């Protein structure tokens, strides 16, 4: 029941908000706050319902072979917690800033949240595609919501590339259906290995191309910096923190279930794309003058880190990837919110002009410093731990190149984050106006605290044990199949 609610509740908010606007306009402020709180709680509850064991919902009571199933296992649960936290924070930032004024924004926001939950819980290829498209349409709309020319161009670019990716995914799904006659992921993971090897290769190629475009991995990343930097602050944090992670979940789920034993080459491809993303993202970030574009290119590189973790195809690698996905959500979400606030204060996004902020906005600058130190990988913080575990997993799996790329990427990222920090701490003209920024500040500080806390997971065996069960559970395809095919 819970997985269904996680999709239906936020989606119904999307349709109720216009009615509230039409008939009870005075209640809109409180209503939206309440709606966001309820969807946050429902998503968390869904995650916990799937943590103890597989929580499978058969829609309409049909069995897996005939109907649609929603499955929550530990991998989904981890990403559900991530989605709930990230979108909750993005909601607080935008609500603290605008209240319920742009009510259409919240309609799209809740649709996005519902589609994200849908992707995370679905156990069916075609439903995955449908949720993927709802999610992408909401994301295109959120990117172009401000209607500035940058936002519209970025939105169009995102739309064209995202749609190409979606049709590759649909093509792969069509081939899967033609090869096996089934679309349920559990059934497919049994029946797909019997398909001819060439068919499997084509299916793997179509799905991986589509998902890489949606993720924004290096060779097809060019929509990502535009989309993530042109959107408004809260949306940038949401896109970099959560939306990308949901795509990574889809990639991990599909590749682990279908290609782990039959096509190990798929994992080699994921690792190589990850290495390319690390190096390409960091090198491109080095050249940027615009702070939000720099952060967006850094996102490309961090996606690369997570992809190398997924590409190991081992329990340790998946665990490290999920751990780093959490780290990146906190780090990049906080960095985008801070960068958005500071650049709005200074009315420029050029790094060399963001001077003198330490004297006038000490709180934000200190939070930014902690987050930047975390993302570079200074030892006690979570970025270091994430990279450490990724490196261990890569070396264990025999991917020496990706471990080296991780190390090289850290050095490059230190260069450009130090450039921002030196600009922020140098003396300069104070920003002109002061306005209350209560929620953005709170959210950033909370994220920075989480960065410190997650860095201490190595000293908290229960927490780390919880993380490592995610990897083993994700690799345990027989248990997944048994849970879904039970009748």
């Amino acid at each position, binding site marked *: 029941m819970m997985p269904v609610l996680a999709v239906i509740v936020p989606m119904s908010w999307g349709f109720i908000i216009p009615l509230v606007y039409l008939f009870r306009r005075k209640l809109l402020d409180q209503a939206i706050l309440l709606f966001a709180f309820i969807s946050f709680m429902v998503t968390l509850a869904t995650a916990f319902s799937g943590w103890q064991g597989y929580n499978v919902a058969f829609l309409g009571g049909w069995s897996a072979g005939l109907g649609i199933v929603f499955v929550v296992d530990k991998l989904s649960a981890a990403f559900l917690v991530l989605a709930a936290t990230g979108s909750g924070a993005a909601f607080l930032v935008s609500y603290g800033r605008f209240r319920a004024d742009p009510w259409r924004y919240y309609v799209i926001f809740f649709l996005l949240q519902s589609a994200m939950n849908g992707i995370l819980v679905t156990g069916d290829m075609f439903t995955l595609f449908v949720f993927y498209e709802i999610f992408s349409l909401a994301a*295109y709309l959120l990117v172009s919501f401000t209607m500035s020319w*940058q936002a*519209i161009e970025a939105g169009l670019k995102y739309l*064209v590339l995202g749609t190409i990716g979606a*049709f590759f995914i649909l093509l792969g799904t069509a081939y899967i*259906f033609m090869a096996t006659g089934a679309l349920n992921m559990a059934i497919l993971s049994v029946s797909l290995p019997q398909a001819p090897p060439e068919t499997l290769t084509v299916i793997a190629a179509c799905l991986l191309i589509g998902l890489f475009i949606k993720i924004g991995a290096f060779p097809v990343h060019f929509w990502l910096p535009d989309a993530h930097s042109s959107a408004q602050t809260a949306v940038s944090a949401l896109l970099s923190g959560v939306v990308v992670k949901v795509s990574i979940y889809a990639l991990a789920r599909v590749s682990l279930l279908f290609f782990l034993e039959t096509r190990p080459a798929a994992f080699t491809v994921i690792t190589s794309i990850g290495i390319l993303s690390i190096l390409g993202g960091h090198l491109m970030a080095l050249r940027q003058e615009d702070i939000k574009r720099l952060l967006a290119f850094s996102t490309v590189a961090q996606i690369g880190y997570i992809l190398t973790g997924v590409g190991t195809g081992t329990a340790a690698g998946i665990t490290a990837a999920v751990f780093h996905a959490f780290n990146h959500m906190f780090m990049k979400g906080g960095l985008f919110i801070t960068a958005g606030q500071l650049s709005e204060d200074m009315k420029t996004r050029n790094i060399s002009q963001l001077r003198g902020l330490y004297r006038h906005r000490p709180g934000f600058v200190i939070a930014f410093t902690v987050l930047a130190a975390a993302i570079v990988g200074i030892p006690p913080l979570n970025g270091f731990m994430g990279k450490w575990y990724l490196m261990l997993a890569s070396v264990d799996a025999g991917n020496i190149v990706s471990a080296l790329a991780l190390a090289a990427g850290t050095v490059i990222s230190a260069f450009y984050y130090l450039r921002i920090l030196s600009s922020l701490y140098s003396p300069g003209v104070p920003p002109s106006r002061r306005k209350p920024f209560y929620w953005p500040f709170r959210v950033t500080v909370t994220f920075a605290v989480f960065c410190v806390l997650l860095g201490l997971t190595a000293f908290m065996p229960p927490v780390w044990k919880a993380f490592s069960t995610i990897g083993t559970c994700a690799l345990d395809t027989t248990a997944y199949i048994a849970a879904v095919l039970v009748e």
Partner: protein
Amino acid sequence: MIKLSYATAIFIFCIGLYTIISKRNLFKTVIGLAIMESAVLLLIVTSGYIPGGVPPLLPMNGVAVNPLPQAFTLTAIVIGASDVALALALVIKLHRRYGTVDLDKIRGLRG
């Protein structure tokens, strides 16, 4: 015969991809998206076809074609239509600002 239709679908898919990659006119890009979409839909619909099959309606006389791909196609058509509609809306917004739909003249976000 079925094989030929599969090949046709992939050929059309490639035409759509080529259109998007090579054309500088934004409307042609959107048309390319629509072509890609219809190619995939064609593939799905043909996959459910059985030579000599009848429509899957009761009472059935003979072998019926598989109705499942047709349901998928309907869903995918709706999704594709919303994609194209949003793309056209954004193109119109861009045209209002630049007075052109030529990608080379739209300075835009590069690098």
